[in-house]
């Protein structure tokens, strides 16, 4: 919980990890490159006071995680999003099992999500069932650019992916978090294309599709889909961190999201341990769209901030929110018409 000027904010950090990026766990140069890429993200966007050494960044102890998130980071509930990357890291980078150790010890603080890969075929479906039972899964994280031997990625529209999504529905795993990465088959197409999200969101209206990093670097494609599919959400991991060094760009991202979606479908994430929630929460509560942009984007109200910081994710994950931290207005999304419903995609892609 964060309190400022007499207003209380319920905080759900929807995208965190308990990773092991130490050299001992790096299987090859790709693992090393992956961690260094994250570390550059951290160095590039963190405030000076929040910078860690490379060694601190490689792995965080249980005490450190609890401290950063709950003791000083204002977080009420944090959601683990696993990233297996077993081709890059000997024991996986951040698996459900690794995350689950902490979640089991602190059930009041953490929710742990699962993961699956349609390339695991029939065996993977059985594994998902066991995972769901073991961890009472309500969500799953998918990384379509994950390498698996010769394969350099997969699409949500692959036939096996549909089988897994059906299985999710059957098991009550309602929240499907998706992260796009730079490598995916076929390599001659845009790996960040979110068109496959559009297809599965239409095919599975009962499921929620949370596109991590709000589709960045394809914000426009993400907005285009999200305005038409009421079950598509935007996770603010990475996007949040622009607030410190690039506030005007951050204002544009938030402004665009509020224009194309609505304030009920955007969720706060620190992407811990790339960044820590403390400064993100503090800065976001103080943040406002710059005055010269307000005619276009409007302003961020307390209720909008409350929804983004915690209420929206709480709704997705059935998390109890104390009465004094709820929004003043009703929580039910209005299910408004898409912004550009009168146009077809063909006409817009010139």
């Amino acid at each position, binding site marked *: 919980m964060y309190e400022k000027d007499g207003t209380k904010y319920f905080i759900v950090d929807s995208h965190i990890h308990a990773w092991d990026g130490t050299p001992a766990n790096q299987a090859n*140069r*790709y693992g090393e*490159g*992956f961690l*260094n*890429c994250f570390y*550059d*993200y951290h*160095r*590039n*966007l963190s405030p000076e006071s929040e910078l860690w050494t490379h060694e601190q960044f490689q792995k965080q102890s249980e005490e450190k995680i609890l401290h950063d998130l709950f003791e000083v980071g204002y977080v009420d509930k944090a959601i683990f999003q696993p990233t297996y990357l077993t081709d890059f890291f000997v024991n996986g980078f951040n698996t459900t099992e690794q995350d689950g150790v902490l979640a089991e010890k602190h059930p009041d603080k953490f929710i742990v999500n699962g993961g699956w890969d349609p390339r695991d075929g029939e065996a993977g479906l059985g594994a998902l069932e066991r995972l769901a039972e073991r961890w009472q899964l309500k969500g799953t994280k998918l990384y379509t650019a994950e390498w698996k031997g*010769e394969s*350099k990625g997969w699409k949500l529209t692959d036939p096996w992916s549909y089988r897994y999504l059906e299985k999710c529905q059957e098991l009550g795993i309602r929240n499907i978090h998706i992260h796009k*990465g*730079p*490598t995916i*088959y*076929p*390599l*001659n*197409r*845009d*790996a*960040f294309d979110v068109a496959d999200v559009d297809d599965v969101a239409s095919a599975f209206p009962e499921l929620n599709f949370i596109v991590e990093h709000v589709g*960045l*670097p*394809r*914000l*426009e494609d993400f*907005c*285009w889909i999200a305005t038409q599919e009421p079950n598509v959400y935007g996770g603010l991991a990475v996007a949040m961190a*622009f607030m410190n*060094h*690039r506030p005007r*760009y951050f204002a*544009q*991202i938030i402004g*665009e999201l509020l*224009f*194309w979606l609505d304030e009920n479908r955007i969720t706060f994430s620190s992407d811990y341990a790339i960044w820590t929630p403390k400064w993100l929460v503090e800065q976001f509560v103080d943040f406002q769209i710059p005055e010269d942009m307000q005619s276009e984007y409007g302003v961020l109200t307390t209720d909008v901030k409350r929804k983004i910081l915690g209420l929206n994710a709480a709704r997705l994950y059935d998390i109890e929110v104390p009465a004094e931290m709820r929004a003043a207005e009703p929580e039910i999304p209005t299910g408004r018409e898409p*912004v*550009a419903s*009168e*146009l077809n995609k063909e*006409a*817009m*892609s*010139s």
Partner: protein
Amino acid sequence: MTTAVSLETEVWRALGTVLDPELDQPVTELDFVAGTEVDGDEVHVDLRLPTYFCAPNFAYLMVADAHDAVAELPGVRRVRVRLLDHFASEEINAGVAAGDGFDAAFPGLAAGELDELRRTFLRKAHLAYQEQVAQQLLREGTELADLVEVRLGGLQPSTALDRLRRRRDQLGLPSGPDALLLVDEHGDAVPVEGLSARLRFARTTRVSIEGNAGWCRGLLDTRYGSGGTAARSGLH
């Protein structure tokens, strides 16, 4: 010696025509050129990117385009372009050197060449420039209904307009003075119905492209240290 110096300049100028397709900016301005070296009639170019995992398809396009731009210079017999510090450096460098195309550089991982990918991003850039020019007209009082009639010949010169014309030429769309400012991907006029939504989406596209460029610049600085532009000669 004098020839070497002027060829250096020519090489730099040639590299200035190579764009990052995703960011629509020259690699020289993005600081992606780590160094160039002229040795008689041989030219060596080193490129670098903001992250180890930058998308290999865009990386390949830049390496191949850099190779072609320099190879076209008079007095150049041999070109070697190397991409540094990238997970697919080896495949990309070897593929471009062999000149067999992208598909051959990544056997089994690609399903064809990169022409369509390049077009996709040219279209995005074109859409963003259209919006930029159109917004200026709207600010000056042009009505939406008149906007669809505006032709390129009647516009004030501007960087956005130059770039828009260049993208049109690359896309094979009309770019002469009689060409309409607002055309769809087939070069046809755009109806006034739905125009504001179309412009709104184009603006989002522009925000996205500009934002990505800023992010990439920042990451490149973080990765290689910000020290202004890359050395324009001498490889280390």
